[in-house]
Structure formats: structure tokens, C-alpha cells
């Protein structure tokens, strides 16, 4: 099936919902046609795969950016809290995304029972690292020679 047919279907569906009085939904459905640029004769499956790839690349970039901020924060609590508070509020980052970030940060498991649990794991790992770093600073102070 071609992209053209999928676009026609969106048009048809738009017309049906508009006739039923849902103008906003009709406009929304027509707007979605903008997701499929390029050759309208190519297979719809191919266009959907491409769309998925585009969105996946965005997700990976966003996850990478959060992970970098968390890692770069080191043991700086202000920087870490700023990054994790933002991550916690970011609705685009679903459970899967937060799991991936937590896995990258902790180097441990790949999944947590909930998004909240993954955020907690991040906080816990940061606290552990900060504690270890402060312990090492004390040890350094008492080093002889």
C-alpha cells in the first residue's frame, strides 16, 4: 500500500469527523499528512519506518543529553539536582527513556518497576558517588608523605 492511499485515508477520515462536528479533530488529521513528505508512491510501511527512525533518533539524542548532564555533574549536587529535576518533569521521557538513562548512569540493571523507581536509582547512585568522593577527600587529607 502506498503513502498516497494512507494520505487519502486521512483525508477521508477528516471529512467524516468534520461532518460529525469535530472540526478540530478533522484539522488535526489533515495536519498529520505533513508527516509524510517525499514520494507519495513509496510504500506506506517504508514511510512509517522512516518516521519511527526519525523519532527514535530524537529520543536517543535527548537521552544522551540527559545522561551527559548527569555524568558531567560529577559530585556537584546543584548541577545533578537541576538535571534530574528537569528529567523528572519531562513528560517526553517515558519509563523506557528514564530506564535507559538510569542504566547508563548506574551501569547496573536495564529496567526498573516504574519510572519513579528509575529516578530513585539515579538519586541513590549519585548519593553513593558523592559519599565515596567525600570519604576519599578525607583519606587524602590524612595521607602521610
Amino acid at each position, binding site marked *: *500500500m502506498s503513502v498516497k*492511499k*494512507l494520505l487519502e*485515508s486521512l483525508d477521508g*477520515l477528516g471529512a467524516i*469527523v468534520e461532518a460529525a462536528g469535530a472540526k*478540530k*479533530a478533522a*484539522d*488535526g*488529521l489533515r*495536519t*498529520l499528512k*505533513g*508527516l509524510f*513528505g517525499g514520494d507519495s508512491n513509496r510504500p*506506506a*510501511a517504508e514511510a*512509517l519506518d522512516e*518516521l*519511527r527512525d*526519525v*523519532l527514535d*533518533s*530524537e529520543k536517543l539524542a535527548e537521552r544522551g543529553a540527559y545522561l551527559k548532564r548527569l555524568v558531567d555533574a560529577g559530585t556537584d549536587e546543584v548541577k545533578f539536582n537541576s538535571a534530574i529535576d528537569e528529567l523528572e518533569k519531562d*513528560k*517526553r521521557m*517515558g519509563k523506557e527513556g528514564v530506564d535507559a538513562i538510569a542504566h547508563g548512569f548506574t551501569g547496573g540493571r536495564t529496567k526498573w518497576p516504574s519510572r519513579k523507581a528509575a529516578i530513585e536509582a539515579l538519586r541513590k547512585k549519585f548519593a553513593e558517588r558523592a559519599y565515596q568522593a567525600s570519604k576519599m577527600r578525607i583519606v587524602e587529607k590524612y595521607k602521610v608523605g
Partner: protein
Amino acid sequence: MKISQLGRILQRASVMHTSGDSELAKALVELAEILKKSGDAEAIAFVQRVSKLRSVIKSKEVS
């Protein structure tokens, strides 16, 4: 209208085609899934975002 709502409309619409055009039904379900997984943006903003992402990807491929 938000893309999550549009995803639900497409999901329902796909049912109408399951006994007739199964390929179209499948494509509508797939598009619905993509929309549902893509957060809660307004349709226009989402389409603009995708277009921008495509440009970024294209420019990376060129360079």
C-alpha cells in the same frame, strides 16, 4: 488537537478497515502507535518538530 487524541481516533478508524483493507488498517494502527508514543504535543507542533528533525538528520548526512 493533541497527537495522543488523534492516535486514538486512528486506532478506532483502523477497525473499520480490518475486514476490508487490512494493509490500510495495519498502517493506521502503526501510525496511531507512533503518535501515542510521541508524547502530548499539538499536531501542528509535532509535524513541525518532525520536519525539523528530518532537516537535522539530512544536514548531518551531508556533512
